[in-house]
């Protein structure tokens, strides 16, 4: 295999992996703070993809511009979901939480099926078929932009958690829920904000992915599974781990496709998951509890 093709494949894997990483970041943030595993994560991203595709079809709004209204709507949706529904399940057994979120996922998939049917939808913008050529290496323009947006969003989120009062309060909740309540923090509100922020990650990732892949209602569970693989590899609750996990999965799939067989792409990422679970169960960047 010529070197430039391997580098090209790895670069494509890194770029796609960063977008996947942003999606998984939402899952990781929600779990890290609220301690709830969002089993409807991929389904929510599918909604974001449909929103971007609809805005493009109706107003010819570029998915990168659609990020702003979709992310805002998703923050409100995430906040409302946590405040109105999931907060009631915080103290309930884990299987109740699991059933609740699986049910939400199923409702989302079927609602999308009823609204849009099972056919694929996508967008077609001018630069979608364009590439940058760096010597012999060809880099897909849309993929590069999507990865850039994913990195910017992740940095903004990290900045928010590190430098704002709300972010610090959320981290306090994550570190010690009981102490956070003792010092007078409104924990349930902070949980809702956190879920809203996780939904924003999903919205940005979903809008970006519409430039790379078509969307159907049935892809939601696949993305949920992918997000789980990424956060387990990177470390559940770790923001850096989600991004690195995404890149690892993207690169491993690219290399599997190039060197073994394209059909072996998923096999290798699940193989990686098993290795991490055996060698480092808390994930590459996760903390042992």
């Amino acid at each position: 295999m010529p070197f430039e093709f391997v580098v090209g494949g790895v670069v494509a894997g890194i770029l796609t992996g960063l977008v996947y990483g942003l999606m998984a970041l939402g899952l990781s943030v929600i779990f890290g703070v609220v301690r709830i595993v969002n089993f409807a994560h991929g389904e929510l991203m599918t909604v974001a993809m449909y929103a971007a595709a609809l805005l493009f079809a109706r107003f010819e709004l570029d998915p990168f511009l659609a990020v702003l209204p979709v992310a805002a709507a998703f923050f409100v949706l995430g906040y409302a979901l946590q405040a109105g529904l999931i907060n009631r399940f915080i103290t309930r057994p884990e299987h109740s939480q699991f059933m609740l979120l699986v049910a939400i996922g199923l409702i989302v998939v079927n609602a999308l099926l009823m609204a849009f049917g099972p056919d694929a939808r996508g967008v077609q913008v001018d630069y979608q078929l364009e590439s940058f050529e760096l010597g012999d290496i060809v880099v897909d323009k849309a993929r590069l932009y999507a990865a850039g947006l994913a990195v910017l969003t992740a940095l903004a989120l990290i900045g928010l958690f590190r430098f704002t009062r709300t972010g610090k309060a959320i981290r306090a909740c994550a570190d010690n829920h009981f102490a956070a309540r003792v010092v007078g923090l409104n924990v349930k509100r902070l949980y809702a904000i956190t879920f809203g922020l996780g939904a924003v990650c999903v919205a940005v990732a979903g809008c970006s992915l519409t430039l790379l892949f078509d969307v159907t209602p049935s892809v939601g569970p696949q993305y949920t599974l992918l997000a789980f693989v990424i956060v387990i590899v990177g470390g559940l609750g770790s923001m850096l781990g989600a991004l690195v996990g995404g890149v690892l999965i993207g690169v491993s799939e690219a290399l599997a496709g190039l060197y073994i067989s394209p059909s072996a792409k998923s096999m290798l990422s699940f193989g990686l998951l098993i290795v991490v679970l055996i060698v480092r169960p808390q994930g590459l960047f996760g903390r042992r509890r």
Partner: protein
Amino acid sequence: MASSQGITRRSFQTALAAGLASSLLPLRRARAQAHKLKVGVILPRSGTQGLTGQSCQKGADLAPGVIKELLGVELELMNADFESNVDTARTRAERLIQDGAHVLVGPFDSGAAAAIAQVAEQRGVPLIINIAAAPQITEQGYKFVFRNFQTAGEIVKNGLDLIGELFSATHAAPTTAVYMHVNDTFGQAMTKGILATLPSRSQLGFKIVDEIAYDPAAKDLSVEISRAKATKADFLLLVSRLNDAILLRREMVKQRWNPMGIVSPGSPGMYEEQYFKSLGKLSDYSISNVPWFNPNANLTKIVEKAFARQNPNDKLVFHGLNVGFTFEAILVAADAFKRAKTTDPKALADAIRQTHITDKMTLGGPIKFNAKGQVEGIGSACVQNLNQLPTVVLPAAAATARPVFPQPGYKKT
């Protein structure tokens, strides 16, 4: 003793059985003497194969009207969408039969066809396959399964012969090909056929340097195209479906891979309307060697008029293959019904076996089933996309334009 007790258990059971039998008999007779044939049309109208399924459905939708005029036979279509899912195909077929379908037509997919064939055989209801190429479907000894379409082996044989004619007509001499195919029942059957047939076609002068299988539902084929490009093959030999063919073509542009051409030895995708709609000018020069319709046939002209009435914004040329074979499958059912004069499934199957239709829409000899339920001698054409229209370029007798190969913009990798 028994008579003194009035009705015994045994006499009651006998009377009950006789009563049931006599009450069901009129129903059975009514079914046998029906004046209308209920045709269960089962297609993938949604999901990954949805667009092709919808294209086939156009052929089914116009059939009752055209066939009523041609044969005077009343048809009632019972449409079912199996959502491009084999398990759903099985349950939809069961449901159609349960709801009274006398014959099944469909399903444009080998995996689904294999599943539906089992149901049809178990329930004793004839299945007439419109499009599905996996050879094993008509190799099982089924008595109720019929296919008016080429098997993968025939498609490959005809497709490779047409590739030879293409190279000869364009004086092109590619020496290497990278072979990409969908990894489903159809793709595997085609691969088996290609790998078995190619060694005996040494006159073609090219060898396959890499074989790349991919998921038919894949959302991203960038790695696959990277790998294909890395082979530096002269041309891409492709067995695709529709959605993946569009993805592949887009990815080739993104990765700036310009081989001599994309040639399908016989698969859907590149001649279909959505391929042109999605890709515009990028759809041009792709080549599909496929069973095709005969634009000059009388039946084609009749069907074309009906098609234009029902689909004023569509052109038959984009749907010719799907419409042609789906229409012919229903025509076979109607013709058998007319001769059998009954909807009794066994009589219908016997009548189908005796089919001999010469006035047909697709290329090749008459529709006549062999002992396995397979029509032989169906013809193929080399169809190249020119000026965003699927155009017959070979065989020369049926061609309306000259083939273009290598395609413009060809650049050695």
